[in-house]
């Protein structure tokens, strides 16, 4: 499966959840598959989906799911110790690890070679790290939500992108409706 197929597969689980979605094609895919006010789309700032999601989770009680990528986590590796040492029970970091920089033309990342993100997350102090194959994503995500424990998921899948339109929604509107969804 490629990322867009996983997102379609887990859309019923993502419904009404607070989601912080990674820059570029992941956000475009989520927007096209299931736009909702509780989706925060990153239009720029590669690497910070996990940090923004952690900030939201630390500030309030609802469950927050950050949908991140292997390339983006690699560009902000300092996030893993911060999560490992501060992870609240309502934060799920779901790293879709397709071993490539999808939004820029599927250039390979190091996770497709020797680098093991799950091992890095564990070494950084993250207590609940689960590795799953693409087809098992929904089951693992639902289990993470139900567990009520902060979780880092590494979802292994194939490289590739669906052709989706660029998000033209104004960033202030994205922020405003996300904040209202949080406060509701």
């Amino acid at each position, binding site marked *: 499966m490629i990322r867009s197929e996983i997102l379609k597969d887990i859309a019923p689980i993502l419904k009404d959840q607070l989601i*912080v979605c990674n820059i570029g094609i992941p956000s475009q895919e989520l927007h096209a598959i299931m736009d909702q006010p509780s989706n*925060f789309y*990153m*239009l*720029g*700032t590669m*690497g*910070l989906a*996990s*940090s*923004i*999601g*952690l*900030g*939201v*989770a*630390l*500030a*309030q009680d609802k469950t927050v799911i950050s949908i991140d990528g292997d390339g983006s986590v690699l560009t*902000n590796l*300092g*996030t893993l*110790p*911060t999560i490992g040492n*501060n992870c609240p029970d309502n934060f799920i970091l779901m790293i879709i690890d397709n071993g490539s920089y999808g939004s820029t033309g599927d250039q390979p990342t190091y996770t497709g070679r020797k680098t093991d993100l799950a091992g890095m997350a564990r070494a950084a102090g993250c207590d609940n790290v689960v590795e799953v194959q693409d087809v098992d994503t929904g089951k693992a995500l639902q289990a993470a939500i139900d567990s009520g424990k902060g979780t880092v998921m590494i979802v292994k899948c194939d490289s590739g992108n669906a052709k989706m339109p660029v998000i033209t929604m104004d*960033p*202030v509107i*994205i*922020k405003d409706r*996300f*904040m209202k969804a*949080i*406060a509701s």
Partner: protein
Amino acid sequence: MNLDKKITDDLVANDVSFVTTVPCKQLAGVIEEIDQREEIFHIPSNKEDEGMGLCAGAFMGGKRSAIIMQNTAIGVTINTLATLTQFYRMPLPMIISYRGELREPVACQVEMAVHTKALLAQMHIPTYHFHWQKDVEEFDNILKYTFMSNKPVAILTDANFWGGYGDQ
């Protein structure tokens, strides 16, 4: 005047309850003060752009946030300031140790100091420079201005403000 206490008191009075820090020798006292306050959740960052991501999330989650960092961090946060904090219109007080100014003992710090105000001006970030201890009296107003305007705002605090580096 206890600057560390005054800055922390003003943060609390302005309902700032989430602070991330990347340390600097000059900022050690205020970081310690913030860490001890029950009203503030203190979360150290490993890099300043990561910290701005945390602050953006906390703000959207309903908490006023602030970052404490060195001016060298301006060099690594330009993209985050432009595409996250400014693009989505979020308030962010940035309490910045202004290294490389008068009374600085380390020459390399000057290399970023000479670019600091120019970079902030280029980014259209409102900037205040605390050089004398009495300048801290403006801090409360600056915080109110930041949350009124929904912008990142820089407060540069130099070595003279903090009382120099002692015998170095």
